[in-house]
């Protein structure tokens, strides 16, 4: 196959990838877009296969069978709640592949007379570096989310200094390579150093901030792949890699905005630790009275409401209560209640995660309301039911300048007539921040396990 023909076929692949992303603008045809992308990927693989002309074909088959087999099985088995770590894992292996390609390319080029051209050398160094950071960082993120290691930020004295020293060492090795020092071991040192850097970089970041990290590392892998395209003179790698690099960067920034925190703060702030002191400060404000009610009372309230909005948080996912919530919602709808779900962009363990979990429970997506659409609706809502959410409904984010989450956009559930909060106990939530919503006179607490409470509510609504 000639160079031009193969590049034209690769162009088809690029177009399918762009369409795959374009189709994601609407849930109705998003799936078709993804399938189109998969077909495009298949075209790229077949074209590349023909280009290799059967060299080491059995090794290619074996490698693809092992990797593809693992990927397919893991992707089929993973629970929807475990999606963030699955994305981290697949992201990491992609970055690892990009780093390995750099090692192989330098090894191939070096024996040639004359050093590698500066631009190729630069692409090799950066792709190896970024790919290795992405690989190692993603593996740590995976381990944290899978709870193989503790989710708390791990910090030690002189941490920033160690990271900085390591980074300078990596940079020196990289510059030497690009400047034409023809030592292959330098790239090894650089790649290993970058992997170590990736580990040290992610370790101090708390479990709650992992989604931002994964999104950033996703962008890193994309960038590493795009740079790999320069090494191999491959347009399809350059364009696809950079599409991912750009989208990952944008998504990372959007997530930062949804939490009202700068990316620097997420990456270097070790948030879980900082908030411990902030909670101690904020704890003084509490002390109002808390109203609680029985499931029967709340069931009556729900059944005779016109409009009920559920506000699900990660606690709902942990309790695996999404199916029960949907059953409760169905019962209410049979009684003529208008039901919807208000979803904060960072509810769950990654952006949009809660939508996936509710979709899995067969909640029709038109009922899933994004924050900007949901907030104006609360003033017309009779009952807002908060299930396992805390910080995303904390009015302190609006009113209390001293609060660590001040300025974070929240769901204004306190605009509703009544707020029902399902909560295990009065312990502060994941980030350890006091929530004045619980002391609001409009608020009724229903204490207990989220799943059991929902099931009880459903029984009582049915009995009415």
């Amino acid at each position, binding site marked *: 196959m000639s160079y031009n023909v193969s590049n034209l076929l690769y162009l088809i692949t690029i177009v399918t990838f762009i369409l795959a992303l374009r189709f994601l603008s609407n849930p109705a045809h998003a799936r078709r877009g993804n399938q189109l*992308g998969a077909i495009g990927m298949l075209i790229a*693989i077949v074209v590349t296969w023909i280009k290799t002309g059967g060299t080491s074909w059995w090794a290619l088959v074996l*490698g*693809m069978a092992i990797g593809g087999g693992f990927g397919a099985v893991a992707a089929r088995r993973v629970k929807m709640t475990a999606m963030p770590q699955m994305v981290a894992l697949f992201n990491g292996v992609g970055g690892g592949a990009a780093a390995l390609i750099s090692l192989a390319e330098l090894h191939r080029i070096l024996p040639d007379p004359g050093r590698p051209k500066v631009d190729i050398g630069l692409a090799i160094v950066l792709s190896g570096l970024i790919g290795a950071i992405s690989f190692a960082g993603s593996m740590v993120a995976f381990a944290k989310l899978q709870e193989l290691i503790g989710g708390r930020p791990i910090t030690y004295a002189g941490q920033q200094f160690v990271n900085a020293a390591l980074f300078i060492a990596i940079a020196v090795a990289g510059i030497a390579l690009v400047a034409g020092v023809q030592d292959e071991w330098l790239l090894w040192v650089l790649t290993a150093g970058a992997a170590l850097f990736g580990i040290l970089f992610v370790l101090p970041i708390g479990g709650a901030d992992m989604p931002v990290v994964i999104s950033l590392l996703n962008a890193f892998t994309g960038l590493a792949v795009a740079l790999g395209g320069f090494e191999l003179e491959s347009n399809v790698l350059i364009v696809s890699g950079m599409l991912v690099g750009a989208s990952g960067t944008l998504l990372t920034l959007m997530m930062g905005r*949804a939490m009202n925190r700068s990316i620097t703060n997420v990456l270097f702030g070790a948030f879980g630790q900082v908030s411990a002191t902030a909670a101690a400060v904020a704890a003084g404000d509490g002390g109002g009275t808390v109203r609680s009610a029985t499931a029967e009372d709340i069931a009556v309230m729900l059944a005779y409401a016109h409009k009920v909005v559920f506000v699900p948080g990660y606690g709902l996912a942990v309790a695996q209560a999404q199916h029960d919530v949907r059953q409760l919602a169905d019962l209410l709808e049979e009684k003529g209640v208008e039901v919807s779900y208000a979803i904060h962009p960072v509810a769950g363990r990654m952006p949009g995660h809660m*939508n996936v979990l509710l979709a899995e429970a067969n909640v029709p997506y038109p009922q899933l309301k994004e924050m900007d659409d949901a907030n104006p609706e609360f003033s017309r809502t009779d009952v807002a039911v908060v299930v396992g959410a805390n910080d995303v409904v904390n009015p302190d984010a609006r009113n209390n300048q001293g609060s660590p989450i001040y300025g974070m956009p929240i769901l204004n559930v306190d605009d509703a007539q009544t707020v029902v909060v399902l909560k295990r106990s009065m312990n502060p939530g994941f980030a350890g921040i006091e929530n004045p919503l619980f002391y609001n006179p409009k608020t009724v607490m229903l204490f207990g396990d989220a799943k059991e409470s929902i099931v009880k509510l459903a029984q009582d609504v049915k009995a009415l």
Partner: protein
Amino acid sequence: MSHSTLLVFEVTILVLAIFLGIEVISKVPSMLHTPLMSGTNAIHGVVVVGAMLVLGSGHKGPFTWIVGFIAVVLASANVVGGFVVTDRMLEMFKKRDK
């Protein structure tokens, strides 16, 4: 095409891809951000093309063999896993099917 012409061309499409990426992604609703992440994840699995070119190159020593093979395994996991998991998620987004 001379080396520098090719480089300029490549940089051009790189820069255009950045703008295209931002443009396309900003139209995705936050409802679909998880599938978006896993979908873009699958797309960077295109690195499998590079891995195949390494492993499928002629006259390679044992080093390239091993590195290329591992790269193909990792990249294939990225491709298949990424698309399958995204498909599983998007399949669930339905309107009412009663």
